[in-house]
């Protein structure tokens, strides 16, 4: 088979850091080639080099056997390379057609859009990417937007498609659909480079897989010979427990009780429609659901940060106390910790050091006070103890700005702070391992299960079904602002044994 892309000895430095160190890789034409690795392993740098967004410091690139030097993405596009970024590059206020022809407009003054729209509609039908060419992009779902991105590449006649974490935002059904499209594109002779950290997808979809770690290419192998465990080991450099043991545990009294919760967004659209659930001590209640089905509203109502709270109906009680009208400080005072969905936005202050971030939200605890300031010895001791027990990686005795740490390390800081809150009864976790490396995921899962064993009530919201199945005691399926179906403890335990079937079952209830 012919080679679509051949990289030899690619090295790219950012300051002292070697993001890519002597990477050599061949991608065969007509295959799906997966590129896996932890955050910061150099996957994105490598794909940006292929796409012409970055120039390598040394090494050569050959496309279809011809050496090339890209100094811009334009040249890469002309050479038949296309890329779907993790965050889509679409103009929301333009139509699908306009977005697709952007940068390729023909005709100087008037764009013959009706004829183009027809062409795009046909192109979509050919590849299972049906979209309405006239629709405005801002009215499309994430899955549809992704189809537009792919159509854009096909319209430009890309022969090599680079997809960066394409399933991160998709529901299980949309993912299935994407996979079918990708397989059909390959049979037409196109080549796909799939960048991901989801090992299941690698195994299900790709023919060949390359693993990167710390800027180097650890190995390339045929997917048929790979297992999840072997890939994880290559990525992390040691054995990784993919599934933390989840022993059976009896549950205690009800801690969180949500009763017929309703609310509308500022635009008047109903976001929650009678959501009810109960979480008991010693239990992890998992909420499965596609993003935008009311998760954000539930979280902000739980934490007292919802705007227009007065307009919401139903009740939330924690240990029998209604939380309506309380602010975050008062809710935290009841023994509640919340790990929000977006770490960077709501859980850390990037410029503050680890020490200061470990105090954030806990700076009101009398324990750490001294006069109008903080007791330095006590805050130091807290930091030392948490850095130690949560395995937060930083040079000993230093206090680096948290923004300079890896995602996994940042999340460990947040977790340490929130899980060690004195008198904690209820822990709310939203996507606790999003953007976190496999190695750190394992540690975080262990800590969460440990907390459950210590009698905490835990509410877990995650878009990773795998994570929900591994950790949850019960699972509620959230759809359009209400729990549509609840899997009992026995059902979840059974489902854990035959995971893929169970994932499909959950998937049916959330779409």
């Amino acid at each position: 088979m012919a080679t679509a892309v051949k990289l030899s000895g690619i090295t790219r430095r950012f300051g002292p850091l070697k993001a890519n160190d002597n990477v050599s890789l061949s991608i065969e034409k007509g295959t799906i080639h997966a590129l896996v690795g932890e955050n910061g392993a150099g996957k994105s740098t490598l794909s940006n080099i292929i796409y012409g967004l970055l120039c390598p410091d040394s090494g050569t690139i050959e496309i279809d056997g011809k050496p090339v030097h890209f100094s811009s993405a334009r040249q890469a596009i002309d050479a038949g390379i296309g890329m779907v970024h993790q965050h889509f590059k679409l103009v929301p206020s333009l139509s699908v057609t306009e977005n697709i022809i952007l940068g390729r407009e023909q005709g100087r003054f008037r764009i013959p859009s009706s004829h183009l729209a027809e062409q795009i509609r046909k192109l979509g039908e050919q590849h299972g990417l049906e979209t309405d060419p006239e629709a405005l992009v801002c009215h499309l779902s994430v899955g549809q937007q992704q189809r537009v991105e792919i159509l854009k590449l096909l319209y430009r006649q890309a022969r090599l498609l680079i997809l960066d974490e394409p399933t991160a935002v998709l529901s299980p059904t949309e993912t299935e659909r994407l996979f079918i499209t990708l397989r059909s594109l390959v049979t037409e002779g196109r080549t796909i480079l799939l960048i991901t950290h989801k090992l299941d997808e690698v195994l299900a979809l790709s023919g060949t897989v390359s693993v990167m770690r710390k800027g180097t290419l650890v190995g390339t192998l045929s997917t048929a010979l790979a297992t999840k465990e072997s890939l994880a080991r290559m990525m992390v450099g040691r054995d990784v427990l993919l599934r933390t043991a989840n022993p059976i545990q009896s549950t205690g009294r009800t801690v969180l009780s949500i009763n017929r919760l309703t609310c509308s967004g500022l635009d008047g659209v109903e976001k929650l429609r009678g959501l009810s659930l109960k979480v008991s001590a010693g239990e992890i209640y998992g909420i499965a659901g596609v993003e935008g089905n009311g998760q954000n509203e539930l979280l902000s109502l739980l934490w007292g940060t919802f705007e227009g709270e007065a307009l919401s109906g139903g009740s939330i009680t924690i240990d029998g106390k209604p939380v309506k009208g309380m602010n975050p400080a008062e809710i935290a005072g009841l023994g509640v910790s919340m790990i929000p969905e977006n770490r960077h936005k709501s859980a850390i202050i990037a410029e503050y050091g680890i020490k200061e971030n470990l105090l954030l939200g806990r700076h009101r605890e009398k324990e750490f006070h001294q006069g109008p300031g903080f007791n330095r010895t006590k805050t130091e001791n807290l930091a030392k103890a948490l850095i130690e027990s949560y395995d937060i990686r930083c040079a000993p005795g230093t206090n680096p700005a948290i923004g300079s740490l890896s995602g996994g390390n940042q999340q460990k800081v947040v977790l340490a702070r929130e899980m060690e809150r004195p008198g904690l009864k209820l822990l709310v976790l939203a996507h606790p391992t999003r953007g976190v490396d496999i190695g750190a995921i394992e540690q975080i899962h262990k800590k969460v299960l440990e907390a459950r064993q210590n009698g905490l009530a835990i509410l877990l919201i995650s878009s990773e079904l795998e994570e929900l199945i591994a950790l949850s005691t019960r699972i509620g399926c959230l759809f359009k602002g209400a729990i549509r179906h609840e899997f009992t403890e026995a059902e979840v335990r059974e489902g854990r044994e035959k995971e893929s079937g169970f994932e499909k079952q959950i998937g049916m209830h959330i779409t």
Partner: protein
Amino acid sequence: MSRKTVEPFIPLLSLLFALTAGSGIIAATGSDPLEVYGKMLRSTFTSGYGSGQVLFRATTLIFTGLAVAVPFRVRLFNIGGEGQLLMGAFATTLCGITMPQETPAFIALPVLILSAMITGGAWALLAGWLKVRYGVNEVISSIMLNFIALGLTGYLLTNRFALPSTVHTKTITPGGFLPNLDTLSDLGWHSPANFSFVIAIVAVASVTLLLYRSRYGYATIASGLNPEAARHAGINTAQHTLVAMTLGGALAGLGATNLILGYKHWFEAGLTSGAGFIGIAVALLAQAHPVWLIFSALLFAWLDYGGLAVNTMVPKDIFMMVQGIAILAIISFPALFKTNLKKKVK
């Protein structure tokens, strides 16, 4: 050189750049730059009167600089120092002239100082409240409040409180006079420098402790760096915004202790000579750090008074330009370095 290693030197670099550019302009007007700078140094640092003048001007600038630096911590740009200073000065004068002549100092001084702080603070709070409640840009509202303060004090002065055929009010009660530095020690400077300088230093120390050592400052800075995360951690960011803005206004108002209580003892037209505006520059040069602010205020005071001292050789306007160039350089140098580094990457 990376951006990180350059950053601390940006104020110094831009200052050097400004002085060099100033030399060019001075040379273009036909004078010898070295001689001019030399005379500026001699007339300020070797003469007691000159040093006192610089100290006096720096005192007001420290206050108006703090008025910018404190709200800066919650990401508010308080351009309203001039108006807050004017309102504080006018309020303290009004209190001072209505008080009985024989009011003892231990009553008069606290009342007058507080009245300046409260009025300045309230004037700033107005802009802060508009921001928190309605999201009105504080830059625009505080500029407008400057105009209103200027008009209001101007009207009240000329139409109500000015002594006939003068542009100033009556003298305040003697109990409200702050001692001149000459009377505190045997300096013999015969300059307007007064006890307010000590108040300014105490204000800097208090602000530094409040911001960097107290729990309250921890929460204030957190609100400024990442309001969303601060709110999530249960910090009332709106309250911190209001307090920081009010504190800034109160500090600007404190500038009146220097101008009214320490020197003029009455309110007059053109009292502030733009100290509120120069305070913005002072805070920018110090990168809004309270301690650096003292040096930055001294520098601007030196350029200001030194410019007057060499008035016979070079027009004072030249030094206004040097001040402007310095600020422009401080603002643009970081951006310049950034783009240069970017180019290198490509």
